[in-house]
Every structure is written in C-alpha cells, then in structure tokens.
C-alpha cells in the first residue's frame, strides 16, 4: 500500500520535470524499436512471432501512424472525419503514378501526394465549414468526398481504372534497393522506416499540443462559439488542422503503396479504409498523444490474428472492428488511455467514502 503510494509520488515528481516527455518518448520508441527482437524470444517453447509476425507489426505501426495523423484534425479540433481514405489514397496514387508512369523517385512522389491531399483537405474543409456543417453532417460530407474519389479513380483510365498500379522495381526509376529507393528486400527495414514515420508525426503532434495552435484546436473542439468570443479564428484553425492531418495521412498512403505490391481504388480508397484509419485513435483515446499508438496495438493485431486464424469466416476482422467501435463509444468515449486516471478517480471515491463512513 505505502509502497504503491511511494511509487506514485515518485512518478508525479518525475512527471513534473521538463525532461519527462523526452524520457517517455525515448522509452516508447525504444520499445517499438526492440519489438522485432522481442517477438522472437521463446516463451515456454513458443515464439511470440508465431502469433505476432513482423508483417502484423508493420501493419500495426502503419495504423498507429495514420491514426496519429487523423487525430491532429479529428481528435484535436473535434471535426470528426469519416473520409481520411481520400487523403490516404491520394498519397498512394500520387506516389505510384509518378514512380511507375514517370520514373520519379518515390520520396518526391510522396511529398507531391502530401501536398495534393492537403489541398483536397482544404477544399473539403472550406466548403463544409463555410456552410457550417458540424458533427454527423460534417462526418458524412468527408465520407462523400472520399467515396467521390473512389468512383472517379475507378473510372479513370489514366490511373489504370479499377486495376490500379503494380509497384515498379527500383531499377525502373534508376535506384537500388535501400532507403533512397523506398524499397527493401526484407521486412525489417520497412518496420524501422514506419516507426520513423510514427516518430515524426508524433513529434509534430507534440509540438502542436504544446503551442497556442493546440490550445486553439482544443478550444474549438470544446465550444466553438466560446472560443470565437475570446479571439480564436476557428475557420482558419480548423483548416490548418485538416491540411496538416491530410498531409501526413497521405504520407502513410505513400508508404503503404511502397510496402505492398499493388494498390487499387477498392483497397486504398475502400469504404472500410475510412474506419481502419480512425479506429485506433478512437479506441486508444482521441485527442491524446499515446491513444492512437496504444489503440492500434489493441485493434490491429487482434483483427489480423482473427482474420488469418479463421480465414474461412469472411469479414471477421470487420466484425471485430465494429465490436471495438461500438464498445468503446458506448462505454469509454475517452478511450483506453483514460482508464488509469478513471481508475484513480474511482479509487479516490471508494476510499473517500470509507473515510466518511469511519
């Protein structure tokens, strides 16, 4: 009992230090970097890797990354996007179209995709916010804009229609396997690359959260009218949130297109992609830094393992996603990362009651 309290007090003292976020970040990303080694450890004669392969880890970190990007807009400013597949798909398609059709380096293609997605986000945002779309109506508008792209791309022969793109070999664009080519001959470098992506978007999120921009975002989320009454230009800041979020989501799409062999409208622009991109953040805790990462480590492995284990049951992963979504929205809208503080509050209440009754 007192030992627990000592640990808690020590942690609070640590938490007040200026270097605390740095230490936590290093610990978190150190753990992520060590995961490929950890899953190979034998536990009672069974490797963890049998259950949690490197491929699943990569997928998990991809969705942690995209959820972190989604969070900047929807978690921070509260403008719930149900259409982030639009930005994801733009990133994937811009990269592949430039790499395959014009032999441009994928890194450049990725940045072009990011800028295009940011621009598309600005159009969606400007139209929706000008006409004062909020809540469900805004979410539906974003979904419509994502579906619109899926139809358009499916019917564009210039982008190979429904067939999509098959990834080019590095030599086709004058590079060799490695970081410059954005292609590797095994999965491990891919894993470290996406962890690097996650590090960047998490750093950007941290900087936003700790600046006036983040405070304005949160004020808009809590009460737009109250925020405006003390000088917050909500229209402009909502657009900033959308553009930054769309940009980083597109980079995720670009990575996706360089990791998997093919992209098609019904994969990167898929209706269900919208759910996959937002669910980790919602489950883990929207508006938090840790939520999207924790959420993805809960949601993605479970659905992937279920999908591969019960491969004859079609769509089981989607059922699991749905179950997660319903459960978390009903029982814990602040997400998994809020559980410790809620438990603490409960503990306090229980103990408080005892003291009163004594």
């Amino acid at each position, binding site marked *: 009992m007192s030992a627990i309290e000592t640990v808690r007090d020590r942690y609070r003292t640590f938490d007040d230090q200026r270097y605390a976020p740095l230490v936590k970040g290093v610990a978190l990303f150190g753990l992520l970097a060590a995961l490929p080694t950890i899953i190979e450890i034998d536990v009672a004669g069974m490797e963890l890797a049998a259950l949690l392969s490197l491929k699943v880890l990569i997928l998990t970190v991809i969705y942690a990354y995209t959820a972190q990007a989604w969070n900047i807009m929807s978690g921070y400013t509260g403008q719930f996007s149900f259409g982030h597949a639009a930005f994801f798909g733009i990133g994937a398609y811009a990269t592949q179209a430039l790499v395959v059709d014009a032999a441009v380096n994928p890194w450049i293609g990725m940045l072009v995709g990011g800028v295009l997605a940011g621009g598309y986000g600005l159009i969606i945002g400007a139209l929706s916010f000008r006409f004062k779309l909020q809540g469900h109506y805004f979410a539906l508008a974003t979904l419509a804009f994502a579906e619109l792209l899926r139809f358009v791309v499916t019917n564009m022969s210039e982008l190979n229609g429904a067939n999509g793109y098959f990834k080019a070999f590095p030599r086709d664009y004058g590079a060799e396997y490695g970081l410059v080519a954005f292609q590797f001959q095994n999965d491990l470098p891919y894993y470290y690359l996406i962890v690097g992506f996650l590090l960047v978007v998490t750093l950007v999120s941290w900087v936003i959260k700790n600046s006036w921009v983040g405070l304005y975002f949160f004020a808009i989320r809590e009460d737009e009218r*109250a925020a405006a009454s003390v000088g917050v230009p909500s229209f402009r800041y909502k657009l900033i949130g959308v553009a930054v979020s769309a940009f980083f989501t597109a980079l995720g799409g670009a990575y996706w297109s360089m990791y998997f062999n093919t992209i098609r409208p019904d994969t990167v622009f898929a209706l269900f992609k919208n759910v996959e991109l937002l669910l980790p953040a919602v489950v883990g805790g929207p508006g938090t830094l840790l939520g999207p990462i924790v959420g993805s480590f809960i949601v993605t492995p479970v659905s992937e393992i279920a999908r591969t284990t019960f491969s004859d049951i079609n769509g089981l992963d989607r059922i699991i996603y749905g179950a997660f979504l319903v459960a978390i929205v009903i029982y814990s809208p602040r997400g998994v990362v809020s559980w410790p503080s809620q438990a603490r509050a409960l503990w306090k209440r229980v103990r408080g009651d005892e003291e009163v009754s004594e």
Partner: protein
Amino acid sequence: MSADETNAPDADIDRDGEQILSVEGVGKRFSGLQALDDVDMTVNRGEIIGLIGPNGAGKTTLFNCISGAFPPTSGTVKLDGDVISGLPAHKIARAGLARTFQITRPLEELTVVENAMVGAHIHTRRRSEAREIAMETLEFVGLADKAEEEAGELTVGAQKRLELARAVSTRPEILLLDEIMAGLTPSESKQMLDLFRQLRERGTSLLIIEHDMKAIINISDYVKVLDQGKGIAFGAPETVVEDDRVIEAYIGGFDVDA
C-alpha cells in the same frame, strides 16, 4: 424628466470620458420577429452601464449583435470609432471587446488555467506568457487554487468566475457581462460586484445585463432600458427606475397617466 427625453442618451446628460462603444440605430430581425428596433446607446471609458428590461426585451440579442455572434440587420456598432458590426466574433474580440455568456460555456475538458490561456493568446503566441496572463486573471477572480482542475468539474459559482476570467484574459477595453451574477449566493454576488469595481478602476468599461435590480442600481453609472426590442429609457439608475415608461414596461399595461 419626461420619457422622451430619457430616450435620447446624450441630449441632456453630461458624461465624462471618451466614447468606447457606440450602438447606432441597431435592429435585428428574425424571420418575422423584430427582436431589436433602432436601438441607440453609448458606453464611455471606465463607465459601468446596466442594461435592463423585462424578459424577451432583446438584451441578449443586443449583446449578440455587438459581439458578432450574428450581425445586426440594420444600424452600426462602433468600437473606438471603428465600425465592428458585421465583423466575425473573433475579430471583435481582438479589437478589444470581450463577453461572457448567460449560460456559462466552459471549455470543459481543458483545465481552468487553459481556459483563461485561450483568451490570453490574443496578446502572445508564447505559451509561458499566456500562462502568466491567465494566472494573473485567475488570481484576480479568485480561482488560482483551482488552476489545474478540469473546467467541467467546477461548481456554478466557480464557472461564473471562470467565464469572467476567460473574457478578462483578453484584456478588453469593454466587457459585456450577460447575467453573470445569476445563480450566485449573496456573498458570491458581493464579491462579483467588487470585481466589477476593480475592473473599472483598471479602465475597463462594463456593459452589464442583470436581473437583480438592487445590484444594478448599486453598481451602474447609467442604466439603459429595453422593452420589446426598443430603447425606452436611459439615465442615472435612480431616475430611470422612477420613469413612467419603465414602470409600465415592468409592471404591465395599465394607464399611468390616468
């Protein structure tokens, strides 16, 4: 003094100080309902003006027109001589006019100090400076000890003070306070009146909607009376409450001249 004369604010009353806020012929129409009709009034630097009137007189509508929640359908509002009517709310706030809401609107999941910091960021983008300004205003309204609590957890009295702190953090030239004393205990009301006086001493002008007539008479330099969207009286508090048209508006339609 006849009723018609009291409706012309500057005609016979000699007021000190430069003009901060000027409302000129402001009207607001909501599809068929004329909520405000040709309202004139002014607020000078360092004045406390009470805005009173029966329910539905248009007091909050006037606040909304002035603060940019929506634009007036006719007339103009000037702050420091510049036209602000038609500007969005955030620009009016940046021009030096802050307001509170009748139903408090705390940014619930933010802490108390963060609520005040949102207002303080008008003056600086640096987080530490905004925090300093915010802490000062929290000290001022007496919420400094609750700085790290979540705003949604506050009691009604504390939420009212937070509402004031958030607006004061913008360091406004003029503050519009919409029934900020409603729901307060007598001692909390007394503290609030004290805060009003201190704000005035700092040079902030106040325009106050309040139902507590005693408090209004006690604190206001002048009182403006609205009834059915029209300004019906303006003057010193003691004079206005004895005005026939004001009594009629409050008590009802019997013939006072009979």
